[in-house]
Each structure stands twice: as C-alpha cells, then as structure tokens.
C-alpha cells in the first residue's frame, strides 16, 4: 500500500458500504409492505381505529388513495391489491350491524398483497372481537342502571389486560441468529470485498514488476522469498482489515453476533483472505501486463461471486451447484452464513475451513514456483 490516499480509500470503503447496508436494512424485518387503502368512511370512528391499528404494525406502511386513483392503478397493474373501507363501515358497526371490508386485487394480489391482506384480516378480527365484547357487556348490563361511561372504561381495562397477557399467547423462538436482512447479506458483502482485493493486488504486483521496483528491491537486503511473502502478507492485510472493519461495525451497530461468533468470523475472514491472496499471487505470477492481470482477476472474481451464493442461492443437485463447488467464495459464504445467520460455530465448518486453507497453501506454493521478479530472472 504505497499511496496514503489509496490506503484511506481502502479503509473508508467498508465503512461506506456498511453505511449503505445500515440505511438499506437497519432495523428492518424480512417483510415490509404497504397497505393501499381507500377510506370511504372518512372520519368514521371504526375506520379510524382500523387505520390506527394498521399503522401500528411495524412491517406495514399505510397509503391512502382516492377510489378513482386506486381503480386506475389497479387497471394499470400499478397496484395488485387495494383495501376499500366502505362509507357505511362505522355506521353499521355502531348500529350493531355487520360491516364489510373489500379487497380488490389483480390475480392473487401478489405476495406482498396477500401478506398485507392477512395482516388486515387479523386487525379486523381483533376489532370485531372487541366490538363483540362491548356489545355482550352492554346487553348483559342493560337491565342495570350502570352508566355507559363506566361500562366503557371497565371493558377497555379488560381488553388492555387481555392485550398485555393474552389467554393464548404465541412465543417465537428462533433457532440460531435472527433471519435479519443484514445477516443474510453481510456474508456476501464480506466475501466480495476480499475477492475484489485479488484484482487490486494482482495488478499492483505486475505494475511493480514493469516499473522495476520489485527488481530494485531485490538489490537491497530482501530475498525473493521475503519479497514474495511480504507481498502476500500485505494482500492478506488489505482484505482482512477491510473485513475486520465491516464485521466490527456489524457487531457494534447491529449486534448480530456474540463476541465468540465475532472472533470466529475473523478467523474465517483471515483464512479466506489468505486463500484469495494466494490466488491473486498466482494471477500476478502468470499475467504479462497490468491489464491482463486485471481482466484475469476480474473474470475469476465475478465467476466466484456469481457461483458463490452472494446474489442468489444455488439449489443442490443442479449443474451450477456442481460448478459452484469449485469456487472458494462458496465455502467462505457458507462459513459466514453458518456463523452469522444460523448460529453455528467453527466446529461445524470442517469442510469449509479445510478447503479455504487448502487453497491458500496450494495457491501459495504454486505462485511461489511461478513468481518471477523479472522475466528470465529470479
């Protein structure tokens, strides 16, 4: 790392990428949808309650539309589902009559529409139950001279109590870590950082060979072996430090792993950086120019990223899956996912650790055999 600006950029880049991840996924759950609502019962007591309860759901945003706008968007397929609250919604409920919500949808309403509809049904059912309780209590106390205000306060207290400690409670228990978007995307981002470092390091070494600085270094006290391992270690350092920054930020901000998992992730990052650096050294050893080093490295990096599960899962049994087993990114991604998203430990990662360490050792030996400070020389 010769240039201070380059060094600063290298350290800043993971922070910027992390900031993007934070703003994209920070605090978000896996699902986030919008309920598109036409409220024809504007100002109605029960439609207001319904909308308030919908807005209270963290995963749902509420967008109010006019009927014309909603119809137009449905017709144009801009929306796949719209919820209509009819004009007489509150009036019917107040009169003890049944009230209806209308879901207009194109096809099945889309995945998001179906989930939102299900959440709306839940809210409607809750309102329905509350309403029934009010009605039953009112009917039961009709013969007694109990002020309506007292009935309302008592029923509301009862309902509040029920909300706090429901008779049938649902307890969620996640096996491993939370299936949070950060958990799912972080491994891919980390491995991409390390893989792109291959391109930079391979190009930098070829450039040094062309400019003669490697040759000049050989006339100092450095041996070829020291020069070679110095370059190898500097490549590892770049990839590892960037990964360390990303993982540390994820640890501090998102708190997605325990201290032990954090350390285990760093171990994987170090071994993966060693494997990637060894591949970078092989490319630097065989490339004849900076451009050829760049293109060879970019080709391998892109193939490894695509096949390694960074952007999409590859189903077992397919041809792509077989090919993906030749990508070190597959093993690094699997290792990080096991630790971060599935709550595993290093003990579960024998295959991944073995493959990554093996690639690092074989790559290092191969590149040392092929590496020349100058053509025809040492």
């Amino acid at each position, binding site marked *: 790392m*010769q240039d201070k600006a380059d060094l600063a950029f290298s350290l800043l880049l993971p922070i910027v990428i992390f900031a993007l991840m934070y703003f994209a996924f920070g605090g978000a759950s896996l699902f986030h949808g919008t309920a598109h609502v036409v409220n024809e019962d504007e100002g109605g007591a029960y439609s207001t309650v319904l909308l308030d309860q919908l807005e209270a759901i963290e995963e749902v945003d509420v967008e109010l539309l006019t009927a014309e706008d909603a119809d137009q968007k449905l017709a144009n397929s801009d929306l796949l589902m719209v919820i209509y609250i009819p004009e007489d919604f509150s009036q019917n409920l107040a009169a003890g009559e049944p009230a209806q919500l209308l879901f207009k949808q194109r096809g099945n309403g889309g995945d998001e529409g179906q989930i939102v509809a299900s959440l709306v049904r839940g809210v409607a059912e809750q309102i329905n139950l509350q309403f029934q309780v009010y009605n039953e209590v009112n009917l039961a106390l009709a013969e007694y001279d109990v002020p309506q205000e007292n009935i309302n306060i008592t029923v509301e207290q009862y309902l509040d109590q029920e909300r706090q400690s429901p008779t049938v409670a649902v307890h969620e228990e996640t096996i491993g870590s939370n299936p949070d978007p950060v958990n799912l995307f972080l491994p891919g981002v980390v491995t991409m950082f390390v893989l792109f470092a291959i391109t930079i390091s391979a190009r930098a070494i070829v450039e040094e060979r062309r*400019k*003669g*600085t490697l*040759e000049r270094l050989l*006339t100092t006290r450095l041996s070829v072996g020291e020069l070679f391992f110095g370059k190898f270690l500097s490549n590892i350092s770049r990839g590892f430090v960037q990964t360390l920054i990303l993982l540390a930020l994820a640890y501090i901000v998102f708190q997605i792993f325990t201290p032990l998992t954090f350390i285990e992730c760093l171990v994987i990052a170090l071994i993966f950086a060693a494997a990637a650096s060894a591949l970078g050294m092989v490319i630097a050893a065989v490339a004849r120019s900076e451009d050829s080093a760049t293109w060879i490295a970019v080709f391998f990096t892109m193939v490894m990223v695509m096949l390694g599960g960074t952007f999409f899962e590859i189903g077992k049994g397919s041809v792509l899956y077989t090919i993906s087993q030749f990508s070190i990114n597959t093993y690094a991604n699997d290792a990080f996912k096991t630790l971060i998203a599935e709550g595993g430990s290093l003990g579960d990662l024998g295959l991944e650790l073995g493959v990554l360490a093996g690639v690092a050792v074989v790559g290092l030996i191969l590149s040392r055999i092929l590496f020349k400070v100058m053509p*025809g020389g*040492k």
Partner: protein
Amino acid sequence: MAEEFLVATDLHKSFNEHKAVDGVSFTIHKGEIFGLLGPNGAGKTTTIRMLATVLEPDKGDVTIGGHSIKHDADSVRALIGVCPQELALYEDLSALDNMVFFGRMVGLDGKEAKEQAQKHLKMMGLEKRAKGRVAKFSGGMKRRINLAIALMGHPELLFLDEPTVGIDPQSRNNIYETIEGLRDGGMTILYTTHYMEEANRLCHRVAIIDGGKIIALDTPHNLKKKIGPPDKVTLEDVFLKLTGRSLRD
C-alpha cells in the same frame, strides 16, 4: 594500484537461444569509476543485473569485496547500491518517503533512513521538494531521486545504469557533480552510458562491450591513442570504429 574490489570472471548469460553476455571478464579497483559502454542490446544491463545479484549467471562468477555473487549474495548486496536504467520509484509516494522506504530495505533504522534521505536530497538539490509526490516531478528530478535512492545505506560499490538518459543539462550537470563528489570521496562506481563525453569526463577506465563480449578495455586516453592523436580523437570515434556504424535495435 588500488585493491581489486570487483572481479568478474567469464560471465555468460543467455535468454532462450540469445547469448546476451558471452564470456565477460573485467576487474574494478577500489575507488575507481569504471565505464561500461556499448550499443543497445550489447549486454550492459544484463551484466549489471548479474553483478547486482538480480540475475544468476549461466556460467562464471563475480566477487565483490571478496564475496561471490553465487555463494554469498547477501554479503554482496550489503556492499552495493543500484541506480537502474528505469525510474524504479513509487510515484504515489513523496521523494522523502521513497528514500526512507528503500533506506529501511537496505537495513537502516527509521531515524537513520530519514537523516540519510534528507542529506542525499539536499545533495541532489531536492530538499525543498522532499514532501512532493514523485508523480508530479519532472524527468530530471525523477532521475536525481533514482540516483539518490541508490546512495541510501552508503554502499561501497555503486552501479549506475545510464543515470542521465533523457534529462535536461542542469539535472545532468547536477548528477555529474554528484558522481565526481562520490569519486573524490573514494566510492567505487560502475557506470554505463551512451554519452561518450560523460565516460570521457568521469571514468578512469572504460570497457566497450558489443554482442555480449568486451572488445576493448583501457583508459579513455589510451583507447583514443589507439586510433589517432588523443587530443584530436574523441571517445565516440573509438566507439564507432570498434562497434561499427550499423543501426542497433
């Protein structure tokens, strides 16, 4: 006669079928400036690379300060400084950082490297640009830095491979004065150049190499005397007479 500091014996080096150096032998005495002259592709740079332990000779050996480049390269590297023909610099670093970096690589500690760097930058007239990025320097300034780096660690033997190529007269003059200062200080120098007046001015003895073989070796005066009156003949006349007038690629 001063002691023999560098002894090259029957050096050979081939690349594929091409014999780049073919049986070169010479000696350089302590405190001497020895010129190695030759047309393009004559084998000068390959010879220097072997002497500087970067290339291994196919045959023959060199001893520098009594140490063999084949068997004791580490000891040889402790005695030499190399100013390569290419500008082997880190252009994104400052002049000072380049010098300190290479100083550390020749075994100086941080303080020593900085002190030597500042001294050599001053000698090269670059002390005011010490913190400037090399990428922004002129060709002449880069050449001077290239030479200054070779002086880090106070080597006993300096290899200067065409140190003045492609620079302005002022920078060239600065380099001449630096080399003369080093010569007066007793440093041993192997100097290659295409500029015959440089060799005539600076070198105690010159060897003319062509086709990988040394075809003449003597003082500039004696070489000139071989083809005519030394005050009327130039070293360039000698060079062209010995190497011919055909163009070299």
